[in-house]
């Protein structure tokens, strides 16, 4: 029950926070205004709840640290559970916008949820800071009301491809990922970058989302010197375990969901050696990350992963936007433009800014999973081995050239003979 955050508790926390804030500082005139309403679309029930619960933890950790004040205004958090399906996302975005009249939306989690509400947030001119990685919404079909401070599906996988080719010295790689859009886009990004630097993808395997046993696919991993997996949710755990149990020793690389820090407490020895590329890393040494991780440990006794960090950074963006406008967000367009123009130096993932399509430009960390340096009671640790700075969603390609290519799919880029 400790995780349960009811609306009432949040409001109570808000009131207490506001009271504290007014005690500490002379209240600026603006603080007398109506509270700023922060809407969160997340998933707290069903199979996607793992990431969704962390999203909420990230937001609440931020708000607690700020005593529920942003830009001099009291914050009301309205947290909505979509149940992880598009119809639920639509209903809940209506609840947030039409009934609760929120000023900004954080979330949703999954790409299909974001696609389901994309038209709606345009109609209602609602600034939305999403975690969902659907590439085209900041690329070929950009949604002007969307800001993404996390990453597109292939944003981290492109540096991963570069690293695999140049530093891991891999030549021939088999990719394996869930048979759906997030998988296609991740593996497509990896393939494009890896092949650009001289690597070769020999085979692409696509198990369905629900695959209790990966053995039929593991049996096909041959004629290669490395494996790239793009699993999400609890699947990376199962995949790595089964991969290891069949005695496969080839190096494995992955993206932000496949090697997420939140999985460190679940992984066992089978994951040692896993190389992952992620827009956030637990071991980044900066003030903001220290505050964030300490807050997560204090509030929830758990280390944050990518989902919690993504939402924490989203909150920082909203906070900075509010500050810049003196707490006045009556003009949504102006609020959006202000946030888009921000560049924030101290976030848990290092400095970030946005490109003109609203997608983040920031660090991508390459980490190696091992036992060395483990903190916070963990047995395993993702140790950063390389940081790619200022990575944009287009990687090294010019924007025009990148957008002229079709979006990555199951069969694009194709597997070449090599």
């Amino acid at each position, binding site marked *: *029950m400790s*995780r*349960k955050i009811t609306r009432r508790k949040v409001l109570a926390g808000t009131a207490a926070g506001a009271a504290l804030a007014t005690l500490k500082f002379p209240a600026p005139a603006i603080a007398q205004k109506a509270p700023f309403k922060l809407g969160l679309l997340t998933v707290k*029930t*069903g*199979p996607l*709840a*793992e*990431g*969704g*619960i*962390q999203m909420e933890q990230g937001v609440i950790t931020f708000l607690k640290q700020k005593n529920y004040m942003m830009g001099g205004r009291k914050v009301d958090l309205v947290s909505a559970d979509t149940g992880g399906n598009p119809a639920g996302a639509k209903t809940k975005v209506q609840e947030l916008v039409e009934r609760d009249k929120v000023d900004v939306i954080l979330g949703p989690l999954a790409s299909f949820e974001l696609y389901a509400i994309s038209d709606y947030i345009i109609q209602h001119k609602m600034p939305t800071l999403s975690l969902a990685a659907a590439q085209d919404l900041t690329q070929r079909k950009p949604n002007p009301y969307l800001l993404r401070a996390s990453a597109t599906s292939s944003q981290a996988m492109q540096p991963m491809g570069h690293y695999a080719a140049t530093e891991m010295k891999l030549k021939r790689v088999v990719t394996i990922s869930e*048979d759906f859009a997030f998988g296609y886009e991740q593996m497509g990004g990896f393939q494009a970058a890896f092949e650009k630097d001289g690597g070769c993808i020999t085979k692409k*395997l*696509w*198990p*369905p989302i*629900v*695959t*209790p*046993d990966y*053995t*039929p*696919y593991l*049996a*096909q991993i041959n004629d290669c010197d490395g494996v790239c997996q793009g699993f999400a*949710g*609890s699947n990376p*755990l*199962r995949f790595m*375990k*089964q991969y290891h*149990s*069949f*005695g496969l020793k080839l190096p494995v690389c992955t993206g932000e969901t496949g090697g997420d820090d*939140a*999985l460190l*407490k*679940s*992984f*066992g020895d089978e994951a040692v050696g896993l190389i992952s590329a992620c827009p956030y890393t637990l071991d980044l040494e900066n003030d903001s990350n220290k505050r964030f991780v300490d807050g997560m440990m204090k509030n929830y006794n758990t280390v944050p992963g990518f989902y919690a960090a993504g939402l924490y950074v989203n909150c920082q963006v909203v906070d900075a936007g509010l500050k810049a406008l003196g707490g006045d967000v009556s003009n949504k367009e102006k609020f959006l433009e202000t946030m888009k123009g921000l560049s924030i130096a101290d976030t848990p993932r290092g400095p970030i800014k946005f490109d003109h399509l609203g997608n983040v430009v920031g660090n991508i960390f390459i980490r190696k999973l091992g036992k060395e340096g483990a903190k916070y009671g963990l047995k395993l640790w993702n140790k950063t081995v390389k940081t790619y700075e200022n990575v944009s969603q287009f990687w090294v390609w010019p924007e025009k050239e990148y957008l002229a290519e079709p979006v990555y799919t199951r069969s694009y880029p194709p597997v070449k003979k090599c």
Partner: protein
Amino acid sequence: MNFWILLAVNSITFGGLLFLLSAGFSLIFGLMRIPNLTHGSLFMLGAYVGATLIMGILSVQLDFWLAAVLSALVVAAFGALIERLLLRRLPGEPLAQVLVTLGISFMVADFCLMVWGGDPISVATPTHLVGFVRYGVAVFPLYRLAIIGIAAVVAVALWLLLERTRLGAMIRAGVDDPDMARVVGIRVSQIFTIVFGLGAALAGFAGIIGGPILSVYPGLDQDMLPLALVVVILGGTGSLLGSFVGSLIVGFLYNFGQALLPELAYFILFLPMLLVLVLRPQGLFGRQLP
């Protein structure tokens, strides 16, 4: 060659796991005519309870096998409770049975999320079964081979229980003709509780035995229930042999289908299920469906 041997052996081990999963479902369905849609939830509950016992509570860590037996008992108690409090009010009412079993599965899923959170939990392979068996160039995990053995032991034990013991005879009598069984002094209501508890125990046991391969996570229930249904349909309802053969068939279909027909991976189990139902509605080996 390696590839084919690997797939064939794995088909049998996966079939073994499916047998553990579906035997309880088949038992309850075959004997009591209850479509127990909580079966996936019982599987998941067993896995969560077992994983917790293995990781240790109150600084007492249990051995894998002890934990498996204990979690099976916990789940059996839960199943018996469901039968005594709810299902026994609803004999011969399949619609109400569907409603109540699905309702309970919603509650169990949310309960697990509440207690264990959303993070997946890894179940460690029992230490004496870590490692591989080598056959030429083929490598196969020892634990998976052990599953074949566990499934075989469970199958024989169930067969002995049903065919060779007094309890088994009473169960069969109670199922064939409950009124007559009552007349000769068998307490049918008690028998039904035992059967349901036994089916639940098998589900919970399967959950923890599957743990080192599947791990435990929210949604495991929804992933496993359809598999149990496919096994029962392909094998036919109401017979132990049916679910045994059905499990093996599904094991082979799953492994070879996914490897050879990746384009059809999403339907690889349901297409054959549909075909069987259309051509032989009673299942491959079953009696006429009710």
